């Protein structure tokens, strides 16, 4: 089937099987080997992408689900101002995700910061999709809270 979608700012019409996972579309059709893992739905959490600004596991999103939607991978997200806010939050808390889960965690942090989620349980529930054990829960909560503050300050300055 033909699917119209926007991936990393490019408007595309892809011709592929309707149930092909997004992680494989990114790997095979888009040639993005670097950031997206494909664990066949084993919930490794390393294939996180933003679909319309919400963090999702790419291996669990079938092709037909992205029709008309905007997909952002870490490769394009890393160049944005929003990523700089997250980097500032990492620095201010003094904790960084390991290189393996850096992309996935950063995208989930972005999703949480964008929605302004402050409830610790919701934050940890969202972040639990990344199986990598490199960060402890309290640091994750602090990073989201700090990120929201930084984003708010930036938005105030801009307005």
């Amino acid at each position, binding site marked *: 089937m033909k699917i119209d979608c926007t991936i990393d700012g490019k408007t595309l019409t892809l011709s592929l*099987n309707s149930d092909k996972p997004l992680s*494989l579309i990114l790997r*095979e059709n888009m*040639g993005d*080997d670097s950031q997206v*893992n*494909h*664990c066949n739905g*084993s919930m*490794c959490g*390393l294939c996180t992408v933003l679909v319309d600004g919400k963090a999702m596991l790419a291996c669990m999103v079938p092709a037909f689900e992205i029709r008309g939607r905007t997909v952002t991978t870490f490769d394009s997200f890393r160049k944005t101002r929003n990523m700089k806010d997250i980097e500032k939050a990492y620095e201010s808390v*003094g*904790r*960084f995700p*390991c*290189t*393996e889960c850096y992309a996935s965690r950063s995208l989930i942090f972005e999703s949480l910061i964008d929605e302004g989620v402050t409830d*610790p*349980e919701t934050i*940890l529930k969202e972040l639990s999709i990344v*199986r990598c*054990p*490199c*960060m*402890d*829960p*309290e640091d994750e909560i602090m990073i989201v809270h700090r990120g929201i503050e930084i984003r708010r300050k930036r938005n105030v300055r801009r307005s």
Partner: protein
Amino acid sequence: MADRKNFSRYNMKCGILLHAKEGSVRISDLKLPELDSRYLVLTGSDLPGNNSINFFGRSMPLIAKETISYPDQIVLALFAPDYESAALTMREISLTTEPLKETPEPATLPDSLEYSWGEMDDNAEGRFKEVTTEFNLTRIARPNRKLYTVTAWLEGSNMHIEAPSQWVELIRDTVERATGYPKRNIIVHLLSYTAKHDEFLIEPAILAAIAATATIRTGLPSEIREECFFSRPTVSVKRRVLLDEDMKPQFESAEMSVDQGAFAFLPEEYQRQAMTGLIPPYPLKGFRGSVKIISSPSQPAAFCGSLGYSEALASTEYHISRLAENAGMTPSLYRQMIEKEKRKFTDYIPGFDLTSQKKCMDKVALSSSFDRKWSANTFQKEDFGLLGYLKGIGIASGAGIAGFSTTLSKETGFSAMMTFTQKHNVTINTSALTHRSTMKIWKKRISERIIPDRSEGVMFLDPSPDTIDTGPDVLSRIVASFTLQLESAAKRLSVLKDTEKPPVYLQFDAENTYYPCEFENSGSGAVVCEVMIDKTTMVPRVKGIWASFAFPTVMDRISLENSIRRTIMMTLQENGMSIPLSFRIHVDITEEGTDDTISSVQQLARGLTLGALYNALHQAAGGKADKLPISDAEINEAFTGEEK
């Protein structure tokens, strides 16, 4: 060095592998569907050269030929125009196996490594109190769920390989042996990777050899996509100690048995590292230690990030806590009673000062209220019935060791070359340049010695056929012993550049003068772990970790602290611990300000976390479930005796 060729994915062979489901069986039938020229199947007999990977003199087949030694062994590689067709075709391939009629020949293993001092007393007169302890770690073998790809393509007379690797030279060597392609014409392009253990050491070399064979057969670029894998060996340590009337240990024997799976990689080094961890820090009149490697039809366990030191250190720490329990004292107080100011000098580890280690222990014991909690848990567990008190706290402390042993360094002669060029720059020829952050620190430190305030003048040469093999990038060799060598070379070069006309070359390797013993100690630490078993679900939860470390030099405090935290978290989760919302790791790092470089932080943090966790679990479960990793079902079974 040539960049990666920009070939189209539509003009490439995509490979997937068929893995065996069980080990110790014979292949009785392998049925393949009719395949057209777009497909290629490679079995063990299709490789033009040797179907084996050679690692420090020990070998293992790349693809199983007639017999399958362990579950998950590669049986066949299938290459297709795309991964979907490869997966669909793979479904039509049927593998039939039958149990081996005769027992397979066990892998050639080294003799048990023995080390002892003093005459052992057999306690025939009953003068001493005898205490025995047992420490068990069961095998962890599971895919990491992380995909990686290995690509091979031809360009003129050169074979290009693109892969993540912890030892580039092993890839070149394996491809040469499997395909007959001269090593000089094999160019490896290193992909960035994050290895928690040693998952990119052996397997990428095997995949590279298979992909290179497919490329030679088809003339097209070939790629294999695979999940990375690691395996921790089964470890069992039995100790017997004789205590005098003051409960001080006098004689001790320790037997360590390690199941390294179907094939053993570098078992001699494992024995040396394990023996270093087995030797207790307290004085003894007599000690006898042995490390035995055994094999079984399971996935070969290679380094797993520790090569045995952390497991052995954890077993020693567990043992000390059991002695303290017998003496009716808290482990921290008991250690103060039995340990002297300095350790005994042995062939494996020098007789270093224990003051900083004791300071670390005091710090964590104080910040975690260890003595109070330990005593409370010990007293209160007797007041509870069937389930016990289900709370436990454990402590472990020890010193870090650096890199590989002196024996291995002498045998292998891995080296690197530093050159002061005519343009007054410094170039370094080494294969150990996989981590940018480490290279940045090296550049800074080397420039300080030779060309002050000009770190951009220090350059690491790009990988090429002339790159000097500096050995595998495991065990933090590059931040431990190799840094020591680099600094020493920089010092010597700073003198030579003033006396000789540039270019001045200096080839350096692990010299005997650095290591009076098998290993050099560097850095020390202590960890306290608090565990609570959930009364309803029996899930073991870690309430908190308190860690204190002291290192001679701290190059980057934030990276070091993050590295310690990651190692602690990884060790806890690997061993089946649940992490609650309130969990917190308290890390304290002290810089001693001496000239030595830091040791392998991961090894030390891992060993101490493992030891403290084992101790805490022992106290929480009342000694009923002494093994790691452990699940809720296993704890439930230990308490109730019910079948799963």
